[in-house]
């Protein structure tokens, strides 16, 4: 199966005065697993639908390999799509759903059958081929949708929040399986989600979007640890954006930028664990919450800014005894303190 690179060049889409895509440009490498991440209304689904051909951009260009598909009809794009609600045909059984794209291509009967069963085998559903769609569980439907999207060997695969309807445990299994399927097939995949954990787990690269614009394109690690904007920092997890002036002690940290980002889980209550170089924040405890694997503490600094501090349960033996209103100090090592360019607190 030959996968293709995708080029998105200055694509713009507006609905009246609402700007859904604001001159978005993006290059996706052949065989890459790329995730579009953002809150609802960020433009990620609009971008996906533009690639699929269901949304016509106002301007800009879409390339599949070196073929311009901007004006190509959706049914000629040869793109596999997995929809949020699966979009399985309720009037066909599992096998007929998977055979559908091959039947459209007028493949010989025996080949259609063989390839459909191969695709079903890939998602471990060959035993349920005669089932009606209504008789399947959510996870099984998801697998049928996957099988149907890969069976005709599309050059590119688009997935629109495919796991959002599944419960947490199943979602984690499917995340792993989708990624494995991608690695087996090597097919260029664009995956849309609003779940940052899912994006971190699955992607080669993540594109964080907000208000129709790309905020940052990077690997999961860099997106998480080196957010380039305050939006990315906050969207990717419990992040504290702090003005350098509010920090009590700074060693080995560049204090010149306008803002520092420290994730909640980067803090220690014990100065020794934080190491020699780093920052110390002093404040009073406003609230505490036990979350199973960790404690979440809310500190208020002198200037009134709140700071979230997350302490792993294993290191939080004293947390249960903490009383709200008592003053305390949180420490973070220099390696966990990131400057955010251009962000104001």
């Amino acid at each position: 199966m030959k996968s293709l690179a995708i080029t998105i060049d200055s694509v713009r889409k507006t609905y009246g005065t609402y700007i859904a895509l604001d001159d978005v440009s993006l290059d996706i490498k052949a065989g890459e697993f790329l995730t579009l991440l953002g809150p609802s209304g960020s433009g990620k689904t609009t971008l996906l639908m533009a690639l699929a051909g269901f949304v016509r951009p106002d301007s800009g260009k879409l390339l599949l390999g070196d073929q311009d598909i901007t004006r190509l009809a959706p049914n000629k794009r040869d793109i596999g799509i997995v929809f949020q609600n699966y979009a399985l045909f309720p009037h066909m059984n599992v096998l007929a759903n998977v055979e559908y794209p091959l039947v459209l291509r007028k493949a010989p009967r025996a080949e259609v059958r063989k390839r459909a069963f191969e695709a079903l085998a890939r998602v471990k559903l060959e035993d349920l081929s005669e089932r009606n769609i209504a008789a399947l569980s959510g996870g099984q439907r998801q697998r049928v949708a996957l099988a149907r999207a890969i069976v005709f060997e599309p050059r590119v695969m688009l997935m629109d929040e495919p796991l959002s309807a599944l419960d947490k445990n199943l979602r984690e299994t499917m995340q792993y399986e989708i990624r494995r399927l991608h690695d087996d097939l090597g097919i260029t995949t664009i995956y849309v989600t609003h779940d940052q954990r899912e994006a971190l787990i699955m992607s080669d690269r993540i594109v964080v979007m907000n208000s129709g614009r790309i905020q940052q394109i990077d690997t999961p690690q860099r997106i998480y640890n080196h957010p380039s904007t305050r939006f990315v920092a906050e969207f990717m997890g419990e992040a504290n954006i702090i003005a350098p002036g509010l920090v009590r002690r700074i060693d080995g940290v560049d204090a010149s930028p306008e803002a520092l980002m420290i994730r909640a889980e980067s803090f220690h209550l014990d100065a020794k664990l934080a190491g020699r170089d780093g920052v110390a924040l002093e404040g009073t405890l406003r609230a505490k919450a036990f979350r199973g694997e960790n404690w979440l503490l809310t500190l208020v600094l002198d200037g009134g800014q709140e700071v979230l501090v997350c302490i792993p349960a294993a290191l939080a033996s004293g947390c249960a005894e903490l009383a709200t209103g008592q003053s305390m100090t949180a420490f973070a090592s220099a390696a966990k303190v990131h400057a955010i360019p251009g962000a104001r607190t």
Partner: protein
Amino acid sequence: MADPALAADARRERRFFLSLSLPALFIVGLAAILPILWIIRQSFLTTGGEYSLGNYDKVLSSGLTWSALVTTLELSFGTLAICTLLGTPLALALASARPRVANLLMAFVMLPLWTSILVRTYGWLVLLRRDGLINAALTDSGLTAEPLPLVYNFTGTLIGMVHYMLPLFLLPVYAAMRDIDANLIRAAASMGATLGQTIRTVILPLSAGGIFSGSIIVFIYTLGFFITPAVLGGGKVNPLSTRIERTLSTFQDWGSASVLGILLLVVMALIGVMFLAARRLLTRNGAAHA
């Protein structure tokens, strides 16, 4: 062990909700079942007031009954065929139009339902007759040398019936099509289906329920249509309904008219059963193959 007081509460609650259906059941019983029973009784009564199968023998052995039945079926199936050909694409257009446009178009389609059938039928007479608007336009523009025979025949009757039935056919088909998940159509396209293939393999199978409902509505109405064939048929189109009218008005033969009424009822029931069977068969096949 259930608490008897709570069980009694549950029973009382069920009884109350059942009792809500009583007024409707009463009316249905009075307005639908009693007259049918009366007609069945009439059908066995001779003019002398004795019970016999004489009326059945007389009606069922008459060629007039069967030619009227053939005309009835021709009208019903003809109306259905044209409604399907015109209504299905129209429903598709409505279902794919933007909601505001669709609502506006729907209002236009429904407009005929707000006027009395008699007014509409005579309206068609004005349009279709020899010196009517359509023939005047055709002859004035030189498209035809002679006025076309558009009314006082089978064609005119069919036009009138289709006009009456189209909105009623359209409603369930439109509702079924509007309920189709847009992503199913996108999914089909993404897998390479052309518009025609999408309509054939996704839209039509999924709106089959609506098309069946619409067809049954067409049958229920058209099997008993009287005014349209009477006004637009010019005396040449004589389905069972006009046969019943003649049997009553010219012969005052309630017994034979009742037999004809029962025949109509039986035909309706048979067609209903046929449709349901066909529907079950089709949905089963549809599930197995694209």
